[in-house]
């Protein structure tokens, strides 16, 4: 049995705003066909939201469907459905959850049927599985597929040749497919306007994430962070609504910081920041609040996380640039977190531990995500060696409830927090 979750969950105003934005988006999706809107399925890392919006398309993200199914306790059933249909128990559960949801009628989080795609935009960025995932969806939907191959930063940086390769694909493959599917001509000025909006929102997101350098941190950059990245990482980047959301979020965080307050957790304001942590890896979605509570109950605040960089590493200085629209989109795709090589990822974690004055770092190793997980044990040793701070390691999964063992995770976390306390790194009251 799962532990009961507290019913009176406290939500920040920005969370409520975001909830309304998402609800409206799904209402728009449900009416897309009758309103003549084209629906584009795509992925979060390397997403080309501004380009899609410049063609008046509605983006839909299978990963987001999967994580929402996880939070709504539906993913286990969907995964079982996909496995019954012949999908291996070994592979990515996001894929199986999405396939299972499709097989069971493709009902979205609002209870309405999701529209079928007019175009599959396969942004092959930082995750091999994406390629297979959209080959699988293509089999089912028999719709056009546009493939954008984003090369990996194997040497720890991207090259002019890589940028040119992505731009060439945008010009020769992606934009022509959008033009064909929508019947609209590419409007670069419209794209520029959207990119300008994105840059403003990105500035505010970085401000919010970096507010965690304060003591106490006014945000939780992992559990809270997944809400903060929502609009920029999904369907809203480039829209005035996203810009407004981030302005509002920034004010909200500023107000908490000015009052010396910590982050808002599901149980309300965190009273005391006992441990400052850096976290690597995605969260578990099937027991999200229970997982968060295991940290909050111990006064553990995540001050920086790598998961909040999967849809863009804005805190490393990248901003979408209207002056170089296609090059800027290419550089965005190339810079997403899982497209960075392991030494760069180790450097990022090391810098986070130092810059955010963390007491330790934790890896949440996801069973079905090789892109994140392969090599994390080596990363842990490297970061421990470079920072002198203790590292913790837990294993869960994205949306497969079979791989979230609450008691095991809690035991490990408690041991980790005890170790932090014993090392005398507890923040003085």
């Amino acid at each position, binding site marked *: 049995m799962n532990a009961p979750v507290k019913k009176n969950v406290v939500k920040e105003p920005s969370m409520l705003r975001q909830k309304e934005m998402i609800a409206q988006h799904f209402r728009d999706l449900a009416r897309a066909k009758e309103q003549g809107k084209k629906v584009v399925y795509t992925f979060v890392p390397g997403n080309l939201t501004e380009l899609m919006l410049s063609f008046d398309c509605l983006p839909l993200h299978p990963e987001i469907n999967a994580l929402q199914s996880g939070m709504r306790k539906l993913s286990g059933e969907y995964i079982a459905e996909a496995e019954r249909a012949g999908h291996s128990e070994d592979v990515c559960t996001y894929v199986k959850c999405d396939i299972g949801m499709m097989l069971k009628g493709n009902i979205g989080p609002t209870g309405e049927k999701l529209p079928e795609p007019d175009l599959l935009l396969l942004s092959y960025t930082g995750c091999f599985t994406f390629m*297979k995932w959209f080959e699988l969806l293509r089999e089912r939907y028999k719709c056009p597929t546009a493939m954008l191959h984003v090369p990996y930063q194997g040497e720890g940086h991207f090259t002019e040749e890589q940028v040119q390769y992505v731009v060439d694909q945008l010009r020769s493959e992606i934009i022509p497919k959008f033009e064909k599917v929508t019947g609209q001509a590419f409007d670069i000025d419209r794209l520029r306007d959207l990119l300008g909006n994105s840059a403003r929102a990105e500035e505010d997101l970085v401000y919010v994430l970096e507010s965690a350098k304060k003591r106490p941190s006014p945000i939780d950059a992992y559990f809270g962070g997944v809400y903060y990245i929502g609009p920029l990482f999904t369907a809203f980047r480039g829209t005035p609504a996203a810009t407004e959301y981030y302005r509002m979020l920034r004010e909200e965080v500023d107000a908490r910081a000015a009052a010396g307050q910590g982050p808002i957790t599901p149980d309300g304001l965190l009273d005391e920041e006992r441990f400052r942590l850096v976290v690597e890896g995605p969260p578990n979605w099937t027991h999200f609040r229970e997982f968060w509570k295991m940290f909050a109950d111990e006064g553990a605040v995540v001050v920086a996380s790598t998961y909040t960089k999967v849809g863009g590493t804005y805190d490393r200085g990248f901003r979408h640039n209207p002056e170089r629209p296609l090059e800027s989109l290419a550089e965005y795709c190339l810079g997403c977190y899982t497209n960075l090589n392991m030494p760069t990822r180790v450097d990022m974690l090391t810098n986070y531990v130092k810059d955010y004055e963390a007491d330790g770092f934790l890896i949440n190793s996801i069973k079905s995500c090789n892109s994140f997980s392969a090599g*994390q044990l080596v990363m842990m040793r490297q970061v421990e060696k470079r920072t002198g701070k203790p590292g913790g390691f837990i294993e869960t999964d994205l949306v497969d409830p079979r791989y979230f063992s609450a008691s095991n995770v809690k035991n490990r976390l408690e041991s980790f927090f005890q170790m932090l306390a014993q090392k005398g790194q507890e923040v003085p009251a």
Partner: protein
Amino acid sequence: MTTTETTPIEAWTRRVEDLVLDLDLSAVRAWKDAQPGRKAIGFLPTYVPRELIHAAGMLPVGVLGAGEELEIVRGDACFQSYICHLPRSVMELGLSGRLDVLDGMLFPSTCDVIRNLSGLWQLEFPDKFVRYVDVPQNFDPEVGGKFYERLLRELLGELCALSGKSPEEVDLAASVRIYNTNRARVSELYALRAEEPWRVPASEAYLALRAGMQLPPEEHTALLEEYLELARAAERPMQDNARVVIAGAFCEQPPLPLIRTLERAGCDLVDDDFMLVSRWLGPDVPETGDPLKALVDAYLAFGGEASCKYVPDGEDKGARLIASVREKHAEGVIFAAPSFCDPALLDRPMLQEALDEAGIAYTSFKYSENTGQLQPIREQAGTFADTIKLWGDQ
């Protein structure tokens, strides 16, 4: 009491098996020792252009894991239980010093695990040359072709810098010719196996192919020719086995006993996707014009399919596998994929659907390179072979 004399082909098999199972890479060490200053470059599956390494004056060495031959300790400390076996055995080989003989490593874009392994290699072996080879998934000559050409020119320059060979001395065209000859012998081996499988057991063909992961291509070609001659001359009884194609084993390799188990279960493996690097470009890369451009064009044009390669047109998914079944007159497909291999296991339902539509029988199992429990696989493969033999025409 009678003694059985070792036949020439048995002697060949023992010699090559010793070579292939030698985790200390003695053959590579011997090649390097034969001439001071020689260097060797390791590469992982699925495909790297070995011609570039060869043209730079170095020995390309396939690093395909440790099979069932090595106890994994340090490698297991690098990877969680749900990661496939290949990276842990490769890491074990590296950390135990067995790969010290290699002066560099190339990690091709096969999957996320091999991709991340490239970075781990940079962290664990900072003094070694390490490159990630990101082959294009866009096959337009003006887009993916241009990108790949730039990548190969840069890689060739880096390899020359490592070997100390001046770029002016490089005769890439000669390397292309040498590998073309090698690919032609490999094709001959596969053709003979498909025509007369009783003459070429899959385990021997596998050894013949795998020897090429350690030997210089010229020596490997000679070894293949020696084997082909022996196989054609050997007196072996024709057998009434089921003709099957193996799919899914393009990266982590099945242990040799598993291949022998499939044969003992009544399967003639008439085609497979083992060590695709040996066959990836097809038999003939053009030998005229710019040889580097020829390698690029051959890569873009090659219609081979593996789970690590994007299939731009959904209608083509599984077409290569079906063509292989038809061309080799196979009666079924065995999907043999390594546990936790995302590319192969995600591909499998699509390929199975294509086979269903084509009316081709198949069975599926998973393995790891150190699989020791072979009896269940023998029973499954035996049942599959029997089914084909009994009801294959229905």
